[in-house]
């Protein structure tokens, strides 16, 4: 099992969700986060006071999937989230030791 963590532009969330649904991904967790990579923040001015806003709002999607499907899902996700501009985000893939469904104690891939 692998965990896919994708940090994307908030306005791309709908497209990504639709694309993942299209290839049969049933579940995901969404977190509203703030951060930045190489994309610079922006300057705001309030009555002459300047503020450098570096941490921009992003959406983080977390999915845990079977090893066999990782490549397909990552490719779909990346294609849907891509606008081609700086600030589109990143995808991280992590190994997952186990998964447990709380309702009935299923373990492993059966719990996904």
């Amino acid at each position, binding site marked *: 099992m692998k965990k896919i963590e994708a940090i994307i532009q908030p306005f791309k969330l709908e497209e990504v969700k639709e694309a993942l649904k299209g290839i049969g991904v049933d579940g995901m967790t969404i977190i509203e986060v703030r951060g930045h990579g190489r994309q610079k923040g922006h300057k*705001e*001015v*309030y*009555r*002459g*006071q300047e*503020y450098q806003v570096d941490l921009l709002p992003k959406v983080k999607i977390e999915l845990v999937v079977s090893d066999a499907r990782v490549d397909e899902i990552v490719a779909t996700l990346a294609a849907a989230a891509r606008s081609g501009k700086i600030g589109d985000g990143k995808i991280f893939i992590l190994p997952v030791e186990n998964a447990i469904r709380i309702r009935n104690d299923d373990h492993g891939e059966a719990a996904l």
Partner: protein
Amino acid sequence: MFRKILLGASALALSTGLALAQAPASVDQKLEALDAAVKSAQTSGDNAWMLVSCALVLLMTGPGLALFYGGLVRSKNVLGTMMHSFILMALATVLWAVVGYSLAFSEGNAFVGGFKYLFLHGVGVDPNPDYAATIPQLTFMAFQLMFAIITPALISGAYAERIKFSAMLVYTTLWLLIVYFPMAHMVWGKGGLLNAFLGGKIPCFDFAGGTVVHITSGISALVAAIYLKPREGYQVEPMRPHSLVLSFIGACLLWFGWFGFNAGSALGAGGLATSAFVATHFGAAAAAVGWLLAEWFRSGKPSVLGGISGCVAGLVAITPASGFVDPMSALIIGFIAGVFCYFMVVVVKNKFGYDDSLDAFGVHGAGGTLGALLTGVFATNAVNNALKDPSGKALPLGLVDGNGGQILNQAIGVAIALVLGAVGSYICLKIADLTCGLRATPDQEVEGLDLSMHGEEGYNLEA
């Protein structure tokens, strides 16, 4: 036949005689009744406008100013800041009823009124002809009360996000007693030192409160900001306004309510009210344009906060002038105020480093001073002819009428307001500091005044 004619003639004579005998009484009575009807109609008209004006001026404080200031602070202080305005709707009202109206408007000496109207004794539906002959004195009292509410609320922009609530109550109560009631008496009370229309020694024109409201509150705010020292983390942590949407709504409500503030100061629904109404609107509009242009030119972008700050600056500056100047002068005063207050807020404040959190001084102190002085330039008897020489000819008012000396009178009024406001504010701050401790503790300040002072939060999004 003959008898019939005789009868008819005598009946005619009788009725004519009766009519002749009754005629003078009837005409007098009719005139009297007509007179009463005209007076009653004027009272109805004037009183209707004045009651609406009262409500409009109250609307400026809550929700107008509460939203304007509330949006400018960080979200952890939104309720505390709104409370600074709201509590005055209650506190200043009680104080006004008990003693304030008397100290401001009953006859006393040149500096403060007496105790004739203590507990509103003798203040009823009969007009007080010294102030407003066509409306109940109760209406006049209520209208003036709304000014006593908003003036100390304006100061809260300077001590926002760091004052202890108990200290704020002590400070504000003392401030009304020491600064506001005397200043209102000097400018508007019968026999007040600066009252141009009721026997003042130095006639100063202040139609709706440039000196009384804006200069006193503005300079008091500056003293409070310096006395309290900057907020924890000032110039280090970001202190962005948490919701300019709230501020926008608040500023537009201020603009709306200001029609009651200025046009209501005509104390009637006649031409002078219209004149003040138009001047008010023009002043606000030109100032918004002025501020935005200055900002666009200097920092590259015209901001919404700049636009609404500009309109408030213009409303402040046109306040003393509103019942004395024509529409074109109002445009000029407004435009200058927009540019000038932008400069005060953006350049001067940062140069000196005082933390006037929401720019109560930069907008109200600076705009009020500018407006009071420009009133001496642009006041004209073509708009307001209440001042007449013994032969009944309207006296020249400002520089445009050829009375340049008025600018000096205005400057004296400004100076008195500045000194009274600064000294009075310092005394009130000192007493509040000694009795309650003025500032929230650093922990309380970091936690936010909403939780530390009031035990609640403005935004419970998970609730």
